[in-house]
């Protein structure tokens, strides 16, 4: 088991943002989490990468506890995060963005005396080709289109070579064609990495959901199953259409 979560709960100002009884992820599994706005999807990823401190619960990554560690420690353990709003270094070139992400020693002295090697250059170019940014390497990242920024951030996460990737709405603001390319990229990545993807776009979810889809509603686990099961589940339909709030309270 790559990731094992138990009884994770966090509330903001009295509102239960997340109350997750159980969540497990196998190694090299691609899991899609869906759910209406405010379901706690992003909060869940925030906790996993150390951005938010939960009130209680347990998170084991590769058998090691994650909670209480700093962002840097968690990143070093092998968890990489892509945010919903593209978060890259806008004033650096695309190449430098990737260079900074590349997995290596990141202490001040290592950075001060860093010398580029062919191995690093090769890897960066390979990943750039994968995300379709080969021609943009010298461009300033701030000048990229929204979709390209999304890809650059995915490239940044890939170059960190994490065992677990947390990908938050990768297809937001992308055209249909770009979305499909992103889907293919994620499927390819899932051969080597465990991935959790948060997504709203059902067409995209259908494309990438190979095994399990998890549905969160109001911070709770509603249902977990294949895409077909989830799509036909009445409770999921209701919560997405937003008319079954009463039912959900009872649930």
């Amino acid at each position, binding site marked *: 088991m790559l990731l094992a979560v138990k009884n994770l709960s966090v509330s903001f100002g009295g509102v239960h943002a997340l109350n997750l009884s159980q969540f497990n992820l196998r190694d090299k599994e691609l899991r899609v989490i869906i759910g209406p706005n405010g379901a706690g999807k992003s909060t869940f990823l925030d906790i996993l990468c150390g951005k938010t401190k939960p009130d209680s619960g347990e998170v084991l990554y590769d058998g090691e506890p994650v909670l209480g560690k700093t*962002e840097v420690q968690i*990143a070093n353990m092998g968890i990489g995060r892509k945010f919903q709003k593209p978060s890259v270094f806008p004033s650096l070139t695309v190449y430098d963005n990737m260079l900074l992400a590349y997995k290596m020693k990141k202490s001040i002295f290592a950075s001060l005396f860093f010398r580029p090697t062919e191995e690093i250059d090769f890897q960066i170019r390979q990943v750039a080709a994968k995300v379709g940014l080969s021609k943009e390497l010298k461009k300033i990242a701030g000048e990229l289109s929204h979709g390209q920024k999304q890809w650059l951030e995915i490239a940044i996460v890939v170059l960190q070579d994490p065992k677990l990737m947390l990908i938050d709405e990768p297809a937001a603001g992308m055209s249909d064609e770009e979305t499909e390319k992103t889907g293919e990229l994620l499927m390819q990545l899932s051969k080597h990495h465990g991935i959790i993807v948060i997504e709203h776009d059902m067409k995209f979810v259908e494309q990438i959901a190979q095994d399990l889809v998890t549905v969160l509603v109001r911070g709770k686990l509603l249902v977990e199953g294949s895409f077909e099961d989830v799509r036909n589940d009445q409770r999921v339909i209701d919560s997405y259409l937003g008319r079954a709030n009463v039912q959900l309270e009872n649930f």
Partner: protein
Amino acid sequence: MEKTKDFRLYGAFIVLFLVLLPLGNLFGIVSNNTISLWGRYFCFAIVALGVDLIWGYTGILSMCQAFFFCLGGYSVAMHIVMKGATASGSDGTSIPDFMVWNQVESLPFFWAPFQSFGLAMILGLLIPAVFAFVFGYFIFRSRIKGVYMAIITQALALAMWLLFLRNETMLGGTNGLTDFKSLLGFSLASPNVKLGLYLLSLSGLCGTYFLSKKLVDSKFGKVLQAIRDSESRTSYTAYRILDYKLAIFIVGALLAAFAGMLYAPQTGIITPGRMDVRASVEMVMWVALGGRGKLKGAILGALIVNFLYSICTSLFPDSWLFILGFLFVITVLYFDKGFLGMIEIIGGKFRRKQITEKVAGHQVVES
């Protein structure tokens, strides 16, 4: 292209300041006063490099650089004053004159190390570095940034200013330290020593520029810019932001202190007035006016603003602050990249004009 432009700029700088001004001084065309002024401007430019590293590259708005500058300045001044001390205390050791006026009878313990030139130099850099380390550690660990950082560093500058103003601090109070006679046996009043200090400051500026350039071109420099762009992304990419911020804060403090050490012997006086909040704010302004995020911009800003200051205060003594304010507003409104950006824009227009003229010329010939 970029390289040759750089070399031309460096060449012009060297010819003007290393050849023309010193030669002019030796032949009596350039006054000693001018040489001494420019020597001091170079010191300010060194501080500006530090401000640019901290603020321009890393995005930390530090408003206490003048304090670090004065720590360096005071340590050299203390050494000079000790050497020039004529009075003697109750236990027979010589003590500076101002202490006698304050009825101090024996040398305070922290003055003792400054009798030695070497120790004074080391302490002049060590004290600011340690101070920056301790202060920076607590600020950066509690993730204070932006406006709060500016406020807290200003508060530090203010507190230290008040501390240095007091006679009980034994650093000369409001009057500061003055009456500098000689340093390492060189009389500070002699024109040759003044020229020597000028050249020393110039080479100090060139050296620190070269090192800073190395620093920002390295991967370390890229991490600094990454921190400025997105702190969260930097830490999720596994860089410990605290280490980097602390390192650059110390480098900035060291640059300021180094500049202060070169500055004090050239002015002949150092007072707490040099370290008040306004002085620190002005240092940030040099960089903002010159071009934030470019080392050349920081140097250009410090030199131009101080040169203008000298001219304007002699021509229109009362209106300097208005002129500075006006410059600042214009820069913020129209030239967000500062003087350096302005030069680049004008240069670009000029070049384009040349090209279009060339093209037009060709067309005439062809027709």
